[in-house]
């Protein structure tokens, strides 16, 4: 039996007003294990803390119970005091006799009786408290950012700025992501490239940043502060260090009919190519599926014309292995495939385009050199219809590819498109069919109202039911106007569909590697929806950009910065002090059944075959669980899932909780 000291706080009259603190101290002093019990007006004061410290020394206390306010308030204070007196800080328990007793009960007798019971429960628990020492694990001072769009770029820049090395892994040949394809940005109408390109260049030039373009994450092991990542660098058949980005190879390459990804297939590129003029790294790539030399062994023209001698047909993909302290997922998004929406005639007419395709049409380096043209006949459209919410906000739809969520960015970029059309081509009639116009954001609603009021865009509340290509090349748009309660038939030259956005397909396998959780839509789940929005529940994994949920550029950049600051906060530490209240598996009892691992939200539990052979009983190898204390957050889900009781939680052990139950029900 441990020697316990009990310290009852009056908290002025906060506790003493409805709880007879003297009686509490006196009664608890009679408990078998209690060798010292006292009361004091303010236990949290320095004088109060000194009483505890002195008593620990004088009475050789092995456990301390403070009956006071909520442990959420002063547990840390008292732990420090206990620790200062040489006792392990976890040999302290706080009985909450203020918030959960004196403040709620008006009757002195009932309040006092309850305070005694709560004190007994704390005494019973502290008897079984183990002295805990927070473990430590070293932090590798390097971060990995997966995805090189604006989210990844911003995160990497911010981390690098703080002085930590950071690697960007981008699966495309260049960083930049979706933002490179966009013409203007709302609500200010800045040129997207103009604000993005400098950041891309900065990434390339920053000494702390290493860009692994045309690369993918292959495997992740380890845990917070100490991840080990394998990065697969795909062969681009061009030596990155030699290529000057002059572009001669891309001009001379005889294969000219490869759909250009940058233009979403609206134009063609060569088999040797640089994605776009401002690509970073500005290095050519050979398309291994289309290059004649790589597919048939002939040609070799690019090698001949390359003065830098950078072309290397023998290049193989390589695996880079690196250690990181933190990982940021910034895998971004794509518009959904809308081929399933027959009613909008997307696959029937070239003049029905998605909004991202429309961006390419508007942008100066796009397939039409920035001229607003119909892709079918090159004519300038006179009437344009924008359809909102294509594939967003759908439930159990027959289309099968719709999303239940709102894609969030469509209202604003459509307003931007409409505005740009009217501005550059005032003779164009622009219709926007909407269900709701959602513009919560600084200057957003003003922006939308400008489209309506200054630019005369026709906003019609109602959905388009059908788009029918006509013999004369026009598109008959049939829609409802819910306000005037009529069915409209608009003869349009062009229809732009605001397709829903979805997380990039690479996100799910990545989440599996990271043991980070995802929702049913494949968006990464944040550790807490409100309070920890840029952290994954898996320690050391952070979220940046649309991979966590739909968001626009300003929000993405804000989140990217937030994620970076979380990473910096982590990397700034030399060692991670782990929460000592973590799960622990008793190997002698573990069956290796995996029930615990099934419910662990952090992937903190691993299994290994262990030898339990004993001389007298012969060989015995069993599969047993072990908990990575640096990863475990101490929720205790595993302790209940475990049928044999091998899993227990330090600080909240089964025997501790049962002792509390017993004391309360006595």
């Amino acid at each position, binding site marked *: 039996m441990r020697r316990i000291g009990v310290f009852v706080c009056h908290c002025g009259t906060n506790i003493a007003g409805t709880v007879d603190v003297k009686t509490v101290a006196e009664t608890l002093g009679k408990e078998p294990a209690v060798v010292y019990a006292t009361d004091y007006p303010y236990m949290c004061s320095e004088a109060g803390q000194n009483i505890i410290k002195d008593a620990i020394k004088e009475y050789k206390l092995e456990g301390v119970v403070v009956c006071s306010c*909520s*442990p*959420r*308030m002063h547990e840390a204070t008292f732990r420090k005091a206990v620790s200062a007196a040489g006792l392990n800080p976890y040999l302290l328990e706080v009985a*909450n006799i*203020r*918030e*959960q*007793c004196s*403040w*709620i*009960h*008006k*009757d002195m007798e*009932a*309040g006092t*009786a*309850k305070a005694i*019971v*709560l004190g007994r*429960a704390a005494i019973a628990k502290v008897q079984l408290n183990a002295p805990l020492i927070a473990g430590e694990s070293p932090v590798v001072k390097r971060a990995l950012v997966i995805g090189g769009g604006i989210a990844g770029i911003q995160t990497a820049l911010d981390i690098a700025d703080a002085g930590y090395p950071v690697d960007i892994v981008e699966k495309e040949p260049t960083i930049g992501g979706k933002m490179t394809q966009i013409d203007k940005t709302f609500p200010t109408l800045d040129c997207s490239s103009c604000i993005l390109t400098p950041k891309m260049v900065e990434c390339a030039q920053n000494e702390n940043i290493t860009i692994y373009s045309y690369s993918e994450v292959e495997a992740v092991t380890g845990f917070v502060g100490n991840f080990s990542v394998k990065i697969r660098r795909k062969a681009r058949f061009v030596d990155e260090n030699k290529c000057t980005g002059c572009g001669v190879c891309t001009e001379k390459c005889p294969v000219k009919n490869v759909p250009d990804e940058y233009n979403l297939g609206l134009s063609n590129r060569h088999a040797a190519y640089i994605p776009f003029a401002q690509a970073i790294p500005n290095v050519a790539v050979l398309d291994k599926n289309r290059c004649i030399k790589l597919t048939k062994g002939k040609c070799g023209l690019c090698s001949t014309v390359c003065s830098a001698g950078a072309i290397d047909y023998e290049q193989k993909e390589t695996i880079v292995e690196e250690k990181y302290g933190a990982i940021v997922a910034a895998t971004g998004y794509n518009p959904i495939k809308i081929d399933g929406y027959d009613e909008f005639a997307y696959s029937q007419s070239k003049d029905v385009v998605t909004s991202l395709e429309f961006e390419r049409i508007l942008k100066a380096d796009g397939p039409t050199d920035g001229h607003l043209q119909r892709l079918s006949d090159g004519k300038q459209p006179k009437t344009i219809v924008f359809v909102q919410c294509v594939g967003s906000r759908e439930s159990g739809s027959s289309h099968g590819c719709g999303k239940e969520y709102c894609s969030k960015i469509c209202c604003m970029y459509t307003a931007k498109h409409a505005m740009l059309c009217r501005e550059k081509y005032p003779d164009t009639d622009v219709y926007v069919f909407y269900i709701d116009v959602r513009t919560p954001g600084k200057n957003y609603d003003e922006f939308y109202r400008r489209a309506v009021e200054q630019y005369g865009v026709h906003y019609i509340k109602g959905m388009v039911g059908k788009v029918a290509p006509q013999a004369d090349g026009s598109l008959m748009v049939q829609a409802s106007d819910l306000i005037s309660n009529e069915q409209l038939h608009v003869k349009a030259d062009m229809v732009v569909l605001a397709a829903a956005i979805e997380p990039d397909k690479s996100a799910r396998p990545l989440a599996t590697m990271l043991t980070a*959780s995802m929702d049913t839509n494949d968006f990464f*789940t944040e*550790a*807490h*929806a409100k309070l920890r929005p840029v952290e994954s*529940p898996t320690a050391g994994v952070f979220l940046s950009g649309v991979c966590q949920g739909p968001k626009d550029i300003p929000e993405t950049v804000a989140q990217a910065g937030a994620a970076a600051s979380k990473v910096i906060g982590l990397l700034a530490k030399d060692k991670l002090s782990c929460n000592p*209240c973590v799960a622990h598996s008793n190997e002698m009892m573990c069956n290796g059944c995996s029930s615990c691992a099934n*419910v662990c*939200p952090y992937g903190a539990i691993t299994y290994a075959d262990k030898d339990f052979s004993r001389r007298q009983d012969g060989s015995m190898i069993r599969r047993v669980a072990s908990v990575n204390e640096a990863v475990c*957050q*101490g*929720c*205790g*889900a595993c*302790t*209940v*899932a475990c049928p044999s009781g091998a899993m227990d*939680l330090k600080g*909240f052990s*089964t025997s501790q*909780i*049962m002792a*509390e*139950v*017993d004391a*309360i*029900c*006595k």
Partner: protein
Amino acid sequence: MQVNNEFRPKIVAFCCNWCSYAGADLAGTNRANYPADVKIIRVPCSCRVNPMFILRAFQRGADGVILCGCHPGDCHYTTGNYYARRRMTMLFSMLSYLGIEKGRTRVEWVSAAEGAKFAATMNEFVETITALGENKRLEDLRCKK
């Protein structure tokens, strides 16, 4: 406990540290009354509560046991309360199957902001248990005084 012939129930409330325990603290801060029969045990998460703890409470003389946790979707540990919810559903099912009066056990989701709800829930629960009376069907006679 039988004092002056008036039955006062023994009630154990398991509260998760992040939401419900904080909610209970808030109830105190707001001076929202509920009977002293309720005694709270702090656990890190509702998923730490083993059905065994609840049986233990009844064995030791509790008349009612309530488990409070973060609202589904708000768990500090993301998924803990989802597991707790299934476990408790199954426990309730088994207790009911064994003929234990319904209502002796309860689960309520209380956020850190819901001090008033915490107090109201406890008041209601104490009322329910008082009406049900002493726990006879799950008692351990050896633990009686």
